[in-house]
């Protein structure tokens, strides 16, 4: 394996982190907050880490990227980002080491599971907390691909190792152009959301941090009561719309820009994604009315819509304490956590397209029980999917369910109750944020024991990188030559 290339990747990521912390220090300076100097030192630490690593490794910039380099490179980059991203929390004195790492990893993986109890923090550090979401949303390695001169060969592997979904679409001949366009779209939509939020009355700081949380489907809010604290109909609606956008496939937005809007609308995954959001909203709203917890249909619909969209897109903003809702609504929300958004979005979860493939291959198995020799292709958007891809999705699903079970077992070992343990694992593994009971919508992850936090941190990373980059280096077959 080419260690130099892995180091190079990590060095560049460290620079990006340093620049981000520097920007946060800038915000701190604007508000004249006391955390300015400590943020500057944090940024310096990132850059000081980057400099020697870069000097040693820059010759590998155009190295060939094999499977090992891609997976290990992405995994190492994310670990480096997490550790360097935790430094500001430590220096500003918000958290101890474990909590700082937890908050950092929760930010980059766009989970939004927080251990923050005291929200009266300076602006700089709160800005950094939200910015980690925004970095992690489109992906720090994709950012690297967009900015730097092309790597040698096999760059598509790096891209695929970080991007969500079973297939990574190349939209332009040069991968760098694809990465750039994705970032342009990401930046463009983010800017639009921030401006609209300001237009409906939010202050710039609130608008920007909530935009970071929305577009990355993260969920960190500078308010203890999340989006509910804004008490604004309009802001809620704007955030709902942009959560739906962030959970959709960004490649489709590029199609729309290229004038192929009609084809984008025919995408089977997009249709199922929107259908699930709509149907779940109606079901939850009805259950709230029937259970009698909500009197007015409008009130029920408003809360159901926000919670359903926030949970299925794995954002994790809340406007209502869904932990107090009826069992049907709670169960449906937890199931939606596993569904997640579309491939090529910033969302977590299993992804709608995988479920579509699973459903179709199950249907094929049933049909073949009756017609054993039937040849039935698995189609998505009227295109046949190769069988090896179907098999890999089946394997992914098995691993996903197994990890959920093992994770729940491990978290339950610190004696927190089944619902808390299972929902905490579901909410972190799927990069959602809030769970049920002890980790419910109005509470947070501070009471979980340190061991449980470490388990959840690993799960967040596994979920965001879709298992492979984290799991493969621990297998023997990965290292066999």
């Amino acid at each position: 394996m080419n260690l130099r290339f892995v180091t190079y990747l990590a060095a560049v990521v460290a620079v990006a982190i340093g620049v981000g912390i520097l920007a946060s220090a800038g915000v701190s300076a604007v508000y004249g907050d006391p955390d300015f100097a400590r943020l500057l030192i944090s940024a310096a630490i990132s850059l000081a880490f980057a400099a020697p690593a870069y000097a040693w490794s820059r010759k590998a910039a155009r190295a060939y990227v094999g499977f090992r380099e891609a997976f290990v490179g992405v995994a190492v980059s994310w670990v480096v980002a997490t550790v360097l991203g935790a430094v500001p929390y430590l220096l500003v004195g918000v958290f101890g080491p474990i909590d700082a790492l937890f908050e950092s990893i929760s930010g980059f993986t766009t989970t939004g599971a927080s251990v923050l109890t005291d929200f009266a923090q300076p602006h700089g550090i709160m800005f950094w907390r939200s910015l980690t979401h925004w970095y992690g949303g489109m992906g720090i390695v994709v950012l690297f691909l967009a900015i730097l001169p092309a790597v040698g060969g096999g760059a598509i592997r790096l891209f695929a190792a970080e991007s969500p979904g079973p297939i990574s679409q190349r939209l332009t001949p040069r991968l760098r152009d694809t990465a750039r366009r994705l970032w342009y779209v990401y930046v463009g939509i983010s800017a639009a959301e921030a401006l609209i939020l300001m237009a409906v009355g939010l202050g710039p700081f609130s608008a920007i941090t909530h935009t970071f949380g929305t577009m990355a489907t993260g969920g960190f809010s500078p308010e203890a009561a999340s989006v509910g604290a804004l008490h604004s109909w309009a802001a809620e609606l704007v955030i709902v719309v942009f959560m739906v956008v962030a959970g959709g496939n960004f490649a489709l937005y590029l199609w729309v820009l290229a004038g192929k809007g009609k084809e984008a609308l025919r995408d089977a995954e997009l249709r199922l994604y929107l259908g699930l959001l709509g149907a779940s909203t109606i079901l939850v709203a009805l259950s709230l009315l029937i259970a009698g917890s909500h009197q007015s249909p409008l009130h029920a619909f408003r809360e159901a819509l926000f919670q359903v969209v926030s949970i299925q897109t794995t954002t994790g903003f809340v406007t209502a304490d869904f932990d107090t809702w009826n069992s049907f609504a709670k169960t449906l929300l937890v199931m939606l956590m596993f569904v997640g958004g579309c491939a090529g979005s910033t969302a977590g979860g299993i992804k709608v397209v995988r479920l579509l493939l699973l459903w179709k291959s199950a249907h094929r198995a049933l049909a073949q029980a009756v017609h054993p020799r039937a040849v039935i292709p698995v189609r998505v958007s009227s295109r046949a999917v190769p069988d090896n891809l179907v098999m890999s999705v089946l394997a992914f699903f098995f691993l996903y369910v197994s990890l959920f079970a093992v994770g729940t077992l491990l978290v339950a070992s610190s004696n927190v109750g089944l619902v808390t343990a299972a929902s905490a694992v579901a909410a972190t593994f799927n990069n959602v944020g809030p769970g049920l009971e002890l980790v419910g919508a109005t509470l947070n992850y501070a009471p979980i024991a340190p061991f449980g936090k470490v388990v959840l941190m690993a799960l967040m990373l596994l979920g965001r990188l879709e298992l492979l980059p984290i799991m493969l280096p621990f297998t023997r077959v990965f290292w066999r030559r």
Partner: protein
Amino acid sequence: MRTAAILSSMYAVVVGAGEVGFYIATILSQEGHEVAVIDRDRTSYEKAAEELDVLAIHGNGASPRILEQASMGRADLLVAVTNSDEVNMIACLAAKQVGVPLTAARIRNQDYLEEGHVLSAGLPGVDYVIQPEAAVADEVIKIAAVPGALDVETFAGGQVSLVEVQLAQGSGAALVPLRDLRLPSGVLVSGVMRGGETMVPRGEFVLQAGDRVFLLGKVEATTAAAELLSGQHGLPRKAILLGCGEIGMRVALGLEERRIGLTVFEKDPAQAARAADVLRRSLVIADEGIDERILVQEGVPTADVFIAATGDDRLNILTALMAKQLGAKRVIAIVERGEFSRVVESIGVDVALSPRRMTASAILRFVRAGTVLNAAVLDKSAGEVLEFLVNGSSPACGRSLAEVDFPRGAIVGAVVRGETVSVPDGRTVLEEGDIAIVFAVADAVHKVERLFASRWGR
């Protein structure tokens, strides 16, 4: 419309991802161009999709649906190098129809190109035809005709040449620094490759036996210098050729034209008879040429050049090694698979030429014609030799070479002004309209291109 300048980024569509197509796509994408690769074969397609930074498309490169997928309408160049001549021609035609300005195709079958044939005036839709056999035969002839040469490239319409030679054991040139080395006037040691690394030597540099030396200058002067350094004196007089097929026959005719004594081995009696009929001055022997006794008897130990050009890679490599062992001064093997050429050269074959690689470099040369008049990529990516028409507004123009900020790994080896060729020094001032031939190691190529680029536009 030959505007595909090397500096600007262009969009190239390569049809066929076999060895030739894959290699062309690799080089173009490394140079920062946008590239799409189309192949019907699933394995070739997957290899391109995984290994290269290109848009890989699975399908037939001549079908309208696939062309649409590759956005052929905005392509600047189409390269058709599938195994089938017919598919290559149709792909070019289809590309022309949607307005691709430049097309190149590999055509193997002579029947399409022979005089008198309906297509001989140039194939419709194809701007540039590359025949691998002809290309590799030309290369063999060029190399065979220069004493001791391992590679020969010509520039400025044949006035300037680059010759690569290996410094002979015990050569006097290894004793003194370059500045004290007496070489014929009009030639410059522009590059030296030692231990796999290429550098541009300074005056105090001392050569070692075994170094590969790149000589750049006037054609006669480089030939004389090649003689001096390689220790192989006089023009080659005796050549032995194994195999008289498509490539062999062309080589034989070319060598006869240069009055080099030739012995040809051809195992197929009918083919041998045909060769004997065409080749008037050569000796044709109807034998496979593997038997050591026959090889010795026919003079391999005293041959200046031994060329193995049968259709069988393994046979070519092994007989070339055998000839080298028997004492032939230089051995050249035709090795179809380019992947082999590096290792073949490392085990003792002086020159291994691959028709596939030749095809790829010929097409790349064609593609790059723009601000660069001509560019030769040297073996094993040692570097490049670039030929520039000096533009009045480029940074390299109007100042003495010492003042121009040349990168360490590059040197102007020859300047052609009108009819005269000269080797420049630090005081030379380039003028508009001069042709400058520059040797550059791989890392320095881009900087050199910038020095010669016009300041306005790209």
